[in-house]
């Protein structure tokens, strides 16, 4: 906890120095007071070692660098747009599988909580194949599926991975009718509750692939906006066009993120240099 306290202090100092510009830019939320320090009493806290963070490419494990900067840019861009519209529920998806949805969602959350005023809840809504917990090197744990199907209280399910005000809700076990589960009244109620429970809290949904399942389309109306992750050299132009056309009516698209730039030209020597 000492580490957390220290980080908190650092953020406070930062916030003090950035107070004026941030208040000026955030017109939709003029009363952005520093929320009270949350001590997660009921939420299970997990200390994830730095080696795991690095291995799972979570930016909390890295010092400043192009990778971290890229997410900071993303964070800033999203915050600008979100605050303008007063949104706080954002879904992260991609046209196909394995294009970096979970990676982007986790890292976006991690970068968002670097802003001390911001708290983030990351929900693993990919009930077909939940993977967020794996990012934190956790063994299988109960999650959203258990809440929806078995009425396990939500407080028992939330996990704080030890990064600022970052809380995530694992997916639990895989559900066969994931789209139906996501659109169940219970789920909708949960989303509503999350949305209004805390001030300056961003709720991120890690969603299944857009083109491979109906989940996203079904769940889209309950989201404020959608973030589309695209992998360089993997996602096809046609897929992006199709995805955009599909969700155009249901939910505004916040924007796109290009992931894994430079993967195809990466050499072992180049990798060594980065590591």
């Amino acid at each position, binding site marked *: 906890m000492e580490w957390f306290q220290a980080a908190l202090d650092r953020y406070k100092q930062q916030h003090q120095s950035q107070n004026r510009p941030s208040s000026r830019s955030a017109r939709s939320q003029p009363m952005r007071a520093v929320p009270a320090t949350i001590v997660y009493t009921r939420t299970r806290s997990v200390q994830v070692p730095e080696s795991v963070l*690095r*291995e*799972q*490419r979570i930016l909390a494990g*890295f010092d400043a660098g*192009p*990778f971290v900067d*890229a*997410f900071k*840019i*993303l964070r800033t*861009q*999203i915050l600008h747009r979100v605050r303008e519209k007063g949104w706080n529920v954002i879904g992260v998806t991609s046209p196909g599988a394995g294009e*970096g949805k979970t990676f*982007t969602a986790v*890292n976006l959350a991690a970068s968002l909580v670097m802003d001390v005023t911001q708290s983030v809840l990351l929900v693993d809504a990919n009930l077909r194949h939940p993977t967020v917990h794996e990012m934190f090197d956790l063994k299988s744990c109960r999650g959203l599926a258990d809440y929806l199907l078995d009425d396990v209280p939500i407080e028992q399910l939330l996990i704080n991975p030890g990064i600022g005000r970052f809380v995530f809700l694992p997916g639990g076990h895989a559900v066969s009718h994931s789209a139906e589960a996501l659109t169940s009244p219970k789920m909708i109620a949960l989303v509503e509750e999350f949305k209004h429970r805390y001030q300056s809290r961003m709720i991120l949904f890690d969603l299944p692939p857009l083109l491979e399942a109906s989940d996203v389309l079904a769940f889209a109306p309950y989201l404020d906006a959608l*973030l589309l992750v*695209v*992998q*360089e*050299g*993997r*996602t*096809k*132009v*046609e897929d*992006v*066009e199709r995805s*955009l056309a599909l969700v155009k009516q249901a939910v505004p*698209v*916040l*924007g*796109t*993120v*290009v*992931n*894994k*730039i*430079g*993967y*195809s*030209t*990466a*050499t*072992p020597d180049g*990798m*060594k240099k*980065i*590591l």
Partner: protein
Amino acid sequence: MADHRRPQESESTVNLRDYLTVFQRRKTVIFFAASVLLCLSVTAAVLWPATYKSTATILIEEQEVPAELVHSTITSFADQRIEMIKQQVMSRSSLWKVVEQYDLYSGMRRNSTTEDVIKRFIKDIEVEVISADVIDKRTQHATKATIAFTVSYNSGMPETAQRVANELTTLFLGENLKSRERQAQETTTFLKQEAENLGQHIEEIEAKLAKFKQRANGALPELMPLNLQLMNQADRELMDLDQQIRSLEERKTYLEGELATIKPNTPIMSVTGERILDSLERLRALRAEYAGNAATFSPDHPDIIKMKQEIAALERETGMKPESEEIAKQVIDARAGLATLTDRLGQDHPDVLQAKRTIAGLERELRRIGSTATSKLLQRPENPAYINIQAQLNSAVSSLEALKTSRMSVKKRLQDYAKRIERTPEIEPDYLVLTRDRDTSAQKYQDIRSRLLEAKVSEGLEVQRKGERFSLIDPPGLPESPEKPNRKAIVLLGCILALAGGVGAAALAEHLDHSIRTPEQLLRVTQAFPLAVIPYMPNRADLACALRRRSRMRLGGLGAIALLLLLCHLFWTPLDVVWYATLRRFGIE
């Protein structure tokens, strides 16, 4: 608007960096395609069977005797002739003979048809003409003239190439000589035949003409002036003769008149002035006296005997026989007297009897003389003047006779000529046709004869090999290095091809790959730049994985090469042999 401008900008600024990125991205594909192509080309360069080419160069020499002096009967162009000879040499039968002689394409012959083998053989034979720019002597224009040609043969074995090229060269040279000689001979033979035909024709015409001339009998148109001249001459001659005849007639008449006035015998006078009878007159008188006495006296009367002796002597002297005419006249006279006497005196009167006896005696005498040869009365004129005139008369008469005869002949001649001249016009057309035919034929014959002579000279030119001829200036040699393939060139080409193939493969891959590579592509799709571009962040596992993959690939590549070499060594040729063979093939010993 800005959104529209930007993509254009981005497209127009495709720079070296982008290409480098593409290269980086596609280097595997590039490397793979290039190495495959390179391997293929090197393999092809090494494995391509060598072809050896043996070439003979044959010069076309102009004829040695200047063409102004002796024209050759062979006037076709050299390359045309080469082509002709090529066709003759490359006939199936002769080529097949060569194939069998040298045992070419033994493998192919077992499996393919004769046709294919011949086709292949023809493909391996090359005949090329070598031309030079020359100036035509007659037209002063620059033209191309064929001065030489080459005969080559391609084969996998240098010795075979040389031997077959040699054989082909021999065939070409032989065929040329044969064809030239044959051509020259054919010309001569043809001309000879023509000349013979024409000669025969002329002979026929000549015979016809001769017959015609014979039939025309001097009435030929060409003899017309001569005939006219001769006729004139004859005419003149005739007139001349007439003149002469007339004058001779006159003279004859005159002479006859003269002669009539002169007595042939001049009387000889005795001293008594009595005329002396010459023996002839005496004989005549005696005979007359004898006839009277014989009637009065018996035959054995001495007077009669005396008279008889005298007559005989005179007859001997003069050679005159008693003249039967005279006796016959006396007989007739006596008979007339007898008749008168008989009428007057009666039968038994002595005078009548006397007369009867006289007649009988005269008849006896007549019979006697008649039985002996009647000798002409030799009446020799004595008068010189008479003799002279008679001689003149005689000559005139004989001249006249001669002139008359000759006039007859001249007249006949004249008629003859006239007839000829009359006949000439009707003969003329036929004759002209015949002569014209003969003339033209003869002219043609002359012409052909002269040409035949020329052709014979030309044939001599060919037979003695003094005409245009092919001389082998460069006999087919033993090829030392293969003509094909140019292995270095193939390898070089292979390198270029490999590069191009690599680039092409990359371009193709890039073209087929529709995945998103740059933020600009997203801009085009979503009308907005991506919110963030997240660089690839490798972790240890990725690095280890990449390293592992790299070492695996290296190992795999080495292993594949080793395996290939091993297979080659075990199943094909030992590697050291391959190495040295490869070195040799590329010309490095």
